[in-house]
């Protein structure tokens, strides 16, 4: 008996000695932590690689190689250029001639070869003609003029084009690069930040240097306006109704399941739906940001509804009871108490939905918002909704699909611009959430 009681008190061994069970348990826990750390490390590694490659490939898109020249064109030369059939070609010749004479003055490139100079320059004629037509006063005066170098010369500075790679090329020959080097030394060819990339519009397949993302940024902007204005109120109203007012029955269950299913529908399905309903049936204009916005609204609604309902659900029922208890109507309880508490979550969901919509490409291609449509800026605010335009991701896709590697670089640059916009949106989400949450 005495033995039994003594043993009963010593059912466990010494605490200073780890028993095998505990050792196994601790080992399992340590392993699990290690897996978790490894997963996170792997994630960070891929993120860094991704960021690095995006920046490395994309940053060159933000600089461009330009040729600067003081031009002095006489009225007679202008008249002559305007009288011919190929007006832009004539202007190009003017520029080449002036650059040639300046090169001769400075003793660059030996004998002047207009064709070689033409290969170095990008599309000069258009810009030059547009400038003189806009500023007739400048005729006969010395004017500082800066034009893009050809995309191959640009590529030479960015490491894309090498002398060895220029065999058999009729667009640029290896000896041209010697001229380019000399022009660079003379300060006539320089590299500068390319505002045209950020603010410009898409250019033809033969003019990567002139292509900019500005027009499609506007396209995306108008689309996002449509998405925000439609999906936020509709989504929030639908969620409030479903969550707070709708009776719980078979019918609402079916709606609920279908909203979740809708969130998983591939975006291209929404695209073809938009094509059939908005363009073919409702006769809305093709390639219009309005239609893009409508399609993306359909896509964004489920995201907003799901997150809004989740944040409404997260508001403790005691708050509703409290409001009803002092004689608030159901609607007052929802709008005065529940909605403000759910607002941070709703906001986050909305911005995540918008960010998804901003990056969506496939449905836009189906309704005709392809990149090459972004050749003109919208002519006004309301026109921006209906005039043909593209959007950032579709523009990027179009560039990436073009054969000229210079466009490939533009695509990477476009990705950077898109990511910057997404980061800004997320930052706004965080700031707004903080602001709302500070009101407990």
């Amino acid at each position: 008996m005495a033995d039994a009681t003594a043993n009963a008190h010593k059912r466990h061994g010494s605490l200073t000695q780890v028993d095998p069970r505990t050792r196994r348990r601790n080992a399992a826990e340590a392993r699990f932590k290690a897996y978790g750390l490894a997963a996170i490390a792997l994630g960070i590694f891929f993120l860094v690689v991704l960021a690095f490659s995006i920046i490395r490939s994309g940053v060159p898109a933000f600089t461009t190689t330009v040729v600067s020249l003081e031009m002095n064109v006489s009225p007679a030369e202008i008249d002559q250029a305007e009288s011919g059939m190929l007006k832009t070609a004539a202007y190009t010749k003017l520029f080449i001639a002036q650059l040639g004479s300046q090169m001769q003055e400075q003793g660059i490139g030996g004998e002047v070869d207009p064709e070689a100079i033409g290969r170095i320059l990008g599309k000069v004629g258009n810009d030059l003609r547009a400038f003189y037509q806009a500023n007739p006063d400048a005729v006969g005066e010395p004017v500082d003029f800066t034009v893009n170098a050809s995309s191959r010369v640009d590529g030479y500075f960015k490491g894309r084009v090498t002398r060895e790679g220029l065999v058999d090329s009729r667009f640029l020959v290896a000896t041209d690069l010697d001229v380019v080097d000399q022009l660079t030394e003379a300060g006539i060819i320089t590299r500068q930040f390319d505002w045209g990339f950020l603010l410009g519009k898409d250019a033809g397949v033969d003019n990567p240097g002139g292509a900019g993302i500005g027009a499609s940024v506007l396209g995306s902007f108008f689309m996002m306006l449509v998405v925000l204005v439609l999906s936020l109120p509709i989504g929030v109203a639908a969620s409030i109704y479903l969550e707070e007012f709708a009776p719980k029955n078979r019918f609402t269950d079916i709606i609920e399941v279908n909203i979740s299913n809708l969130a998983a529908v591939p975006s291209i399905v929404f695209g073809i739906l938009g094509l059939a309903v908005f363009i073919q049936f409702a006769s809305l204009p093709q390639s219009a940001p309005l239609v893009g916005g409508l399609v993306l609204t359909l896509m964004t609604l489920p995201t907003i509804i799901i997150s809004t309902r989740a944040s409404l659900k997260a508001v403790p029922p005691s708050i509703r009871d409290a409001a009803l208890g002092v004689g608030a109507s159901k609607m007052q309880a929802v709008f005065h108490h529940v909605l403000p508490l759910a607002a941070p979550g709703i906001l986050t969901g909305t911005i995540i939905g918008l960010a998804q919509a901003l990056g969506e490409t496939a449905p836009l291609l189906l309704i005709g918002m392809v990149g090459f449509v972004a050749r003109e800026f919208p002519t006004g605010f309301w026109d921006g909704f209906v005039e043909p335009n593209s959007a950032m991701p579709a523009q990027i896709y179009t560039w990436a699909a073009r054969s000229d590697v210079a466009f490939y670089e533009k695509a990477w640059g476009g990705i950077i611009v898109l990511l910057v916009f997404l980061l800004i949106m997320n930052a706004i989400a965080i700031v707004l959430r903080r602001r709302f949450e500070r009101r407990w």
Partner: protein
Amino acid sequence: MNDMRPLERIVDTDNIKISAKGCQVYYGETHAIKDVDVQIEDNTVTAFIGPSGCGKSTFLRCLNRMNDTIDICRVEGEILLDGENIYDKKVDPVQLRAKVGMVFQKPNPFPKSIYDNIAYGPRIHGLAKSKADLDVIVEKSLRRGAIWDEVKDRLDKPGTGLSGGQQQRLCIARAVATEPEVLLMDEPCSALDPIATSQVEELIDELRTQYSVVIVTHSMQQAARVSQKTAFFHLGNLVEFGETGQIFTNPTDPRTESYISGRIG
């Protein structure tokens, strides 16, 4: 039920605030309240006691139609407030709840300032014509909630930042701010420590002068301390209803007797 007849007769009918007749409550198939008749007097604290799950909260929530918010809940029978059936089709539950205020088991102040917590009810019911009016109402309500001295210097601070006992008194102040005639309290002290509990109990006793108070409690000592009338519920039945002193010292029903002596948990 027979044993209630003699008591009903001695009730002064002029003083009846709420009177339930044949009240039945169902949650879907569950019959939660079975044929309850009860008469609740004005200027009286009436306590509902009984084992957990016997339907005290359910019946209390019938008195201001809070059960309307539960889809599956169905109420039958009559509940008269000042002679009017509150389940009449013409009655708007929102109007009713301004007249019958409620304090919940867990303190649930709005996540707003102390001032706004009190001012919310009067604002939505249009009780104040000006900011000054509202200030007066807020101060009066907080005084009635016996919490004015503790919060008068921080009316703009969040109500959720108060201690549990203070929050509950704030909720009581919020309930009285809409000038109700009846105050329903569902276990108002169950989340409070003994000191906060005794403060709230004192407050309930004071509130009796202006309101008809109905309090659900799981503590028989509390019922004995604060109430004049006690109703004992068991499995959805109102087993016994009468003077608190009589219920505790001389219950007529054996079930009441065994609950009070601790044999039904």
